[in-house]
């Protein structure tokens, strides 16, 4: 299981495909469920979001991510692998800022466990986002509904 949770900048297509390639070597896996969070160009009044700058409490993120993985593994015994990658720093609209990849023997467990992992990330990971608008003004995003 991948150790690094926080990565600088966007989650790249190369990272996603390299993880998929690696998981192909595990022949007990029958299904993957993947969630990719993408930065949305929200419009607020006359301003449009061009990017989000993420910051995080790294030590606590690592601890909480490990705790989430252990909880999911104990709850879904068919799950073989859980990857969590979250961006820090600037991620432009249209780029990926979160990848959750859960692999299991069968699809039901992969899909349910992936969904639960994403919910727990939203609730428990100490990450904050600052929306940067096209006019270079900014605003800290408060609610965690995205």
């Amino acid at each position, binding site marked *: 299981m991948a150790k690094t949770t926080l990565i600088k900048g966007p989650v790249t297509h190369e990272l996603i495909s390299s993880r998929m390639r690696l998981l192909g070597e595990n022949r007990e896996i029958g299904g993957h469920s993947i969630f990719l*969070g993408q930065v949305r160009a929200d419009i607020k009044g006359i301003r449009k979001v061009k990017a989000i700058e*993420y*910051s*995080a*409490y790294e*030590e*606590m993120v690592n*601890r909480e991510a490990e705790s989430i993985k252990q909880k999911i593994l104990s709850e879904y015994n068919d799950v073989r692998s859980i990857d969590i990658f*979250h961006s820090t720093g600037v991620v432009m609209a249209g780029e990926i*800022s*979160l990848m959750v990849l859960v692999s299991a023997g069968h699809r039901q467990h992969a899909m349910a466990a992936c969904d639960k992992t*994403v919910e727990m*990330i*939203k*609730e*428990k*990971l*100490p*990450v*904050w*986002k*600052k929306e940067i608008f096209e006019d270079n003004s900014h605003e*800290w*995003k*408060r*609610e*965690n509904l*995205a």
Partner: protein
Amino acid sequence: MEIRVLFFGVLTEVTQTMFKHYRDVNSFGDLMHRIQDDFPELVHFDYRIAVNSEIINEDPELKNMDEVAFMPPFAGG
């Protein structure tokens, strides 16, 4: 004792810093008073506090070199 205090998210704009060292701290209450004196605007913000990256629900016993983090509501994803 010496305590390292961290600020995150919108709170960094209130404090204009991401961390600050406090020396000769007697207790958690003493630390909180000093932080509130330094940054009175903090009272207007929601936050939770973690000590050594664990969220606390009541006043903890601090040890020398502990890390105390002020965290606004999480917004990951």
